[in-house]
């Protein structure tokens, strides 16, 4: 089947045939896919690949599925945005944003992993797919699972952001809200995968699913003109994505498609859930689970299964790991939005804020090319911004009131960011009070 030679344990090296399983029976280590890179390089080259459709599946020889039918052939190939205005604010010279906030179909990088997992689930003959999720994965399994005719079973912490709940149920997916945090949901999902013969994308389909994340790395290299940046800053939840971007660059080097230039990988977490950052900073590389407490719900995994490997990629590449407070996360979201017109979810705020911190600390040199990985869309986590939402004037449909409002905004120090209402004096007493007012967005009905 294609260019996949089989599966191999990352810990003890045991080889196994391809099957829906994620765990080595010998040592419990995670299984990974083994490819025949010689055969791949004989079959396809950069030029052939560039002529293909602009989706993540243009790299299909490097994915462990899709020999027959690809599910989600439109997913991926999101913009790599040259972010000069952001760079100026960060004090850096060359900054790019890999913008998976506009991935298809559910606006996060999870669309990539789900496309591979469902393609594989179909190949395995599975009819029900599911996941444990902090939200984005739930959305993607719901949308893509429904579209491709699977039954779904999706488990999330019951107190997730409303947009992530709605963005799951709207597809008619079978959603289960669990009274507990993500780590408890995940534990239940492991038991469900054990009991039912379902394709749980991040449990028994995990080795295939995870490979979908490599396409973020392939695309970054291709979009930079077949080269790698000096630095990648990536947010971390389970820790898989940062390792897969590193693996993608490694594979492209193996194939001779890019030069062997060093890339430093920097991992970003929220201060309220930072087990991988702690493992890097204390030098142990070992993960000590934490109870997550952060507005970055999509990163709130206290016991990250790939944390050990993420810490190792960071350390081996000469990178750093850093965490940021909830306040800094919101600043990161706003900074990206105000400079580049990209509205990232809280996890993206983590990436931006950590990049700012590492540049300020001199850990990332200001003249180096930097890629910031934005994994999800801000429209799913608007609650995080409610307290700092910008104010705006509300007026009658009259030109004089508009002129008044513009004048007031021009004189204020920064009126659009005002947290409290700034009332503009009425033009005449008969107009009544507060004809022209500046109302904070948070105080208005949101929909």
């Amino acid at each position, binding site marked *: 089947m294609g260019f996949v030679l089989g599966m191999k344990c990352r810990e003890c090296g045991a080889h196994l045939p391809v099957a829906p399983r994620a765990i080595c029976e010998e040592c419990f280590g995670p299984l990974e896919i083994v490819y025949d890179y010689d055969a791949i390089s004989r079959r396809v080259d950069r030029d052939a690949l560039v002529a293909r459709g602009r989706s993540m599946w243009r790299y299909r020889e490097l994915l462990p599925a899709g020999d027959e039918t690809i599910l989600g052939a439109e997913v991926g190939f999101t913009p790599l945005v040259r972010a000069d205005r952001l760079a100026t604010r960060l004090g850096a010279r060359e900054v790019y944003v890999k913008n998976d906030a506009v991935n298809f179909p559910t606006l996060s990088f999870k669309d990539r992993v789900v496309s591979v997992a469902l393609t594989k689930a179909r190949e395995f003959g599975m009819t029900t797919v599911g996941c444990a999720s902090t939200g984005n994965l739930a959305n993607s399994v719901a949308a893509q699972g429904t579209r491709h005719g699977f039954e779904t079973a999706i488990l999330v912490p019951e107190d997730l952001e409303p947009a992530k709940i709605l963005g799951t149920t709207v597809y008619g997916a079978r959603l289960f809200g669990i009274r507990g945090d993500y780590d408890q949901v995940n534990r239940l999902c492991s038991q469900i995968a054990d009991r039912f013969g379902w394709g749980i994308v991040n449990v028994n389909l995990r080795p295939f699913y995870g490979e979908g994340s490599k396409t973020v790395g392939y695309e970054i290299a291709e979009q930079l003109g077949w080269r790698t940046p000096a630095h990648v800053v990536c947010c971390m939840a389970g820790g898989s994505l940062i390792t897969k971007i590193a693996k993608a660059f490694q594979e492209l080097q193996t194939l001779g498609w890019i030069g062997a230039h060093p890339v430093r990988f920097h991992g970003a977490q929220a201060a309220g859930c930072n087990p991988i950052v702690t493992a890097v900073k204390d030098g142990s590389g070992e993960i000590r689970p934490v109870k997550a407490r952060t507005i970055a719900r999509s990163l709130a995994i206290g016991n990250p*299964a790939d944390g050990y490997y993420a810490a190792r990629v960071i350390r081996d590449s000469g990178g750093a790991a850093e965490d940021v407070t909830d306040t800094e996360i919101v600043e990161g979201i706003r900074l990206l939005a105000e400079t580049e017109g990209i509205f990232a979810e809280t996890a993206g705020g983590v990436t931006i804020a950590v990049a700012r911190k590492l540049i300020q600390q001199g850990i990332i040199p200001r003249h180096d090319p930097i890629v910031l990985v934005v994994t999800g869309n801000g429209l799913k986590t608007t609650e995080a911004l409610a307290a700092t939402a910008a104010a705006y004037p509300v007026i009658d449909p009259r030109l004089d009131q508009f002129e008044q409002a513009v004048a007031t905004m021009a004189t204020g120090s920064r009126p659009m960011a005002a947290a409290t209402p700034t009332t503009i004096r009425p033009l005449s007493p008969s107009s009544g009070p507060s004809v022209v007012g500046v109302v904070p967005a948070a105080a208005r009905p949101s929909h």
Partner: protein
Amino acid sequence: MAIQVRIPSVLRRQTNGDESVALEGQTLSDILDGLEDRYAGLKGKLRGPEGDLRRFVNIYINDNDVRLLSGPTTPVSDGDEVTIIPAVAGG
């Protein structure tokens, strides 16, 4: 009453298909000793040579990850449930 230990499918080849087993002991270490005594094939799967829990094994006492408690030295008492789950995550 004893302590009920739940075994994941990936280990059931070593337990002759047993999904759970009742064992006695004062600490998690005692329980794991008992488990290895009963199923010799489990030796080395859950713990390294020093008795430390293997990196990719999660063990819960009732609802709590033992790494958030006291690891192998965590006390157990009658009626507790010990659940072994391979590490998987990513959401």
